[in-house]
């Protein structure tokens, strides 16, 4: 008798959980579909507006604000010299570059010194944000817009804060050391800052995958797809994330994530808000959320923008170990940031952020991973226990796979309708193929890494997992 009661209770629980999974499925996919629709329309119009954007005027104008590019680097000896060269060749009228070597144990600093003939100088360091100690400043008076700072290891947030302390321009751009900037990317990123009457405190561009591209003299000269399936799936994933994720939230004025790999910030606002913090492992998202909070609390009208045409090429993890480390960190950072700012949830004070972006990030992005993971266990279990008829089970699995493919293919179509960065016909077909297949295997792998990130959050893990770069793009 007792056994039957327990069985009923278990089946009841399974039913409830299956309902949650179905609700999550429709909520998440419905949300993504809305974002895709909004982004598609917006990108098509934006692409036409580019015809009269006036980049030349911005380049020649005396009122274009100076910008400092801050590149934090830790053990990036394979890529750092080329990345700095790429930044120095950026087409921008008033540009300074600050590379912050975060106590690298490899040859990063020496390679920079040799490549740019830098000399050590004893300069004044005026920390407006508290940081680890600075070891030395390296300059070449013949390249006055390049400053390399060597400091004690303190993490990426600390390196960025050192860069902000050394920055003398009203805006700064954070750029990962493994990134290659397109020549006019910064001009494009600064365009809304110049034209918008409101104070834009953060402006983010698109990050694309460098693997498979050909790099010459610090510039991507030929765009192509990487060789391995793992990297190709990431290409589709990035297209989806940036072209319709970020664009959609930008249209809704609900930007909560700006990729720190390539973003421009207003220096004084960031300093007033306290700079980058150590509290999470995704310092970029944490800063954006804090800036929203700071603006509401200080009654400042600020704006954050995502723009899809300034491109920064980054090296994606080429093996599962690095991919796992990257995704665990991203999701740990997401949970930490959302947890730290939980009072924003459905808070009237935070407007769209509190009512749209935050709940979406929490219920769809953050809780989505564990819910989906449990779904992979519970739904087959329900089938085995006879709770779900096999036909429905099969149909639901098919629908889940098809919907995922629909969204991925949608992002490839969006790319094709707008920027068409992959010029070869073959590449387009490959991308479409990978978009169709992304939900079989790769998605589950990433969900597993995200669940590991969730577990780390629950267990209080704080470490910044490193992803090693081998210098993609040659």
């Amino acid at each position: 008798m007792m056994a039957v009661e327990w069985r009923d209770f278990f089946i009841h629980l399974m039913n409830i959980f299956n309902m949650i999974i179905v609700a999550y499925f429709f909520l998440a996919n419905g949300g993504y579909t809305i974002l895709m629709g909004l982004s598609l329309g917006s990108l098509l119009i934006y692409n036409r507006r580019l015809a009269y954007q006036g980049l030349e005027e911005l380049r020649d104008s005396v009122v274009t604000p100076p910008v400092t590019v801050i590149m934090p680097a830790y053990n990036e000896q394979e890529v750092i010299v080329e990345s700095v060269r790429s930044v120095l060749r950026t087409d921008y009228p008033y540009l300074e570059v600050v590379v912050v070597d975060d106590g690298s144990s490899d040859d990063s600093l020496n390679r920079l010194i040799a490549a740019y003939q830098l000399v050590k100088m004893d300069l004044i360091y005026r920390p407006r944000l508290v940081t680890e100690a600075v070891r030395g400043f390296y300059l070449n008076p013949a390249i006055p817009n390049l400053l390399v700072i060597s400091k004690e290891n303190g993490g990426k947030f600390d390196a960025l804060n050192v860069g902000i302390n050394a920055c003398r321009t009203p805006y700064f751009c954070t750029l990962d050391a493994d990134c290659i900037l397109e020549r006019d990317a910064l001009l494009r990123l600064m365009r809304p800052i110049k034209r918008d009457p409101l104070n834009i405190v953060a402006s983010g561009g698109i990050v694309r995958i460098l693997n498979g591209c050909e790099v010459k003299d610090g510039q991507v000269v030929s765009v192509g797809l990487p060789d391995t399936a793992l990297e190709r799936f990431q290409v589709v994933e990035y297209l989806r994330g940036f072209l319709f994720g970020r664009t959609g939230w930008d249209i809704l004025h609900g930007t909560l994530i700006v990729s720190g790999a390539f973003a421009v910030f207003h220096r004084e606002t960031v300093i007033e808000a306290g700079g980058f913090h150590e509290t999470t492992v995704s310092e970029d998202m944490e800063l954006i959320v804090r800036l929203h909070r700071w603006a509401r609390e200080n009654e400042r009208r600020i704006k954050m923008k995502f723009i899809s045409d300034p491109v920064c090429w980054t090296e994606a993890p080429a093996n599962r170990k690095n991919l796992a480390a990257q995704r665990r960190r991203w999701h740990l950072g997401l949970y930490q940031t959302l947890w730290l700012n939980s009072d924003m949830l459905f808070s009237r004070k935070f407007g769209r952020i509190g009512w749209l972006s935050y709940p979406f990030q929490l219920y769809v992005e953050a809780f989505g991973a564990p819910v989906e993971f449990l779904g992979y266990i519970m739904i087959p279990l329900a089938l085995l226990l006879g709770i779900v008829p096999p036909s429905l089970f099969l149909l639901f699995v098919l629908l889940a796979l098809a919907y995922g493919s629909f969204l991925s293919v949608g992002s490839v179509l969006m790319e094709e309708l707008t920027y068409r960065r992959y010029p070869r016909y073959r590449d387009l077909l490959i991308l479409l193929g990978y978009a169709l297949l992304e939900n079989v295997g790769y998605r589950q792998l990433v969900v597993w890494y995200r669940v590991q990130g969730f577990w780390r959050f629950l267990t209080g893990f704080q470490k910044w997992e490193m992803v090693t770069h081998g210098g993609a793009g040659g």
Partner: protein
Amino acid sequence: MPIPILIEHVITFVIVVLVVVLVLTFGFVAAAILRRRRRDRYFERLDDLRQQVFPLVGGLVEGTVDADKAFAALRDLSIKSDPAMFEQLVVERLPAPDKLPALSKLCDDLGLIKRWQQRLGGLADSRGLSALFVRVFRFGYLQRARAAQSLVAIRHRGSWPLLVKALQDAHPDVREVALRGLGTLAEPESLPALVECLQRVILQPATPGLSFRTVKAAIVNFPLSSAAELAPVLKHQHRRVRFLTTDVIREMVEKAAASEYGFTLSEKNFSAELMELFLNNLSYDENPDVRARAAPVIAYMRDIRAVPVLLALLEDPEWFVRLHTVRAMAKPKFETQLPEIARRLADPRWMVREAAVRTLQAFGAEGTALLYDYFLSSEDRYSREQIADEWQRAGLIPSLLAQYAAGRDGRERRVIEQLAHMGKTSYLVGLLLGTQDAGVRRKFLEDFGRHADGQIQAWVSHLAAHEADPEVRALAQARRAELAQAKRSR
């Protein structure tokens, strides 16, 4: 009674959704492939047309082809080809500025200017479905903005009244392109409209499509002689209007100065009214931002009243006024004011101190001598650090070392001693490690080999172990032994 949801209902629903999703997915795949093929064909056509249009346009503009024949061929192409494609190609490769009037005339002859002007004025020239689409979704602004951009690209001066009218357009994009265009054309008669815009964006900062930066960029393009139009705004009661207008004039002056060596402001290029306003009103304005922006303009004036005004601004209670003034005085004509500028080396604000060091350096030998003297005599640690900082950044340490090696009057030796005392020796030691001149190393060893500075000690140890010159190496070893002895006795 509600109808119970049966498993069959759920299955039907899932099947319907699945079919819709699958159809959409494969529809997207087909759309992507078709789009790629269409675009490939489009670019092929564009390239073909480009190869035909470019030589004709280039030849007509440069006057290197038979004008009648070439024009007839171009006209023929404009009729046969896709109009949007043809228009794009005509303005795609712009000739040198002196040939732009020829291109403008060519566009006029081809009827393009009239077409663009009509579009900018809101008259649609397309028919059929696309026109309906544009009207329904209100995408007409895309055409208007592109038309404005094309007119400006070929510098069609006669279109300025239309651009002024476009400043009132319903869409911010058109307003922005028109504003930029007016700046590019810099037609004096259009300036009042821009001045009005300037006041509007300052007083109503949330005007979409018109930011202060965009308006400022447009006005700054006008010749300096037209700055007189801004005089009434400089008397505005709103302090922010005065501040930002002063800043616009400052930018105009700086731009003019950048293009002319030895530039000065006189009644020839700057109205008497503006001159008086800057000297008598703006330099004493209650808003410190106005005073700060007025200083650089006054610094260019050839007027005997300018110097006393600047000296007063050098002592302004607001640090950023002092900062702008010090920076503005980095001009040879202020050579007689060097002591006053040097006083700012002791300013409580580091940015002012930094600006003072840079300004003094700009005076060459005389300024550098003053900096040396100040560096050696000042008790102010912060000022000395600032000077050392600037010497390093400006790359002056190599010349200091060279002068020291040449055995000048000993001042350089004292400067190095002071730098060593402050622990600012990284650059010096780096240079010593790289120099081929054993004489410099010997002299430095003799003078500073016993210095307690860590970097110098490390350098002495390095020489003691690796120096190629036996005499220098022996001296380094002796110095190292002395240092070790001194350490032990301590």
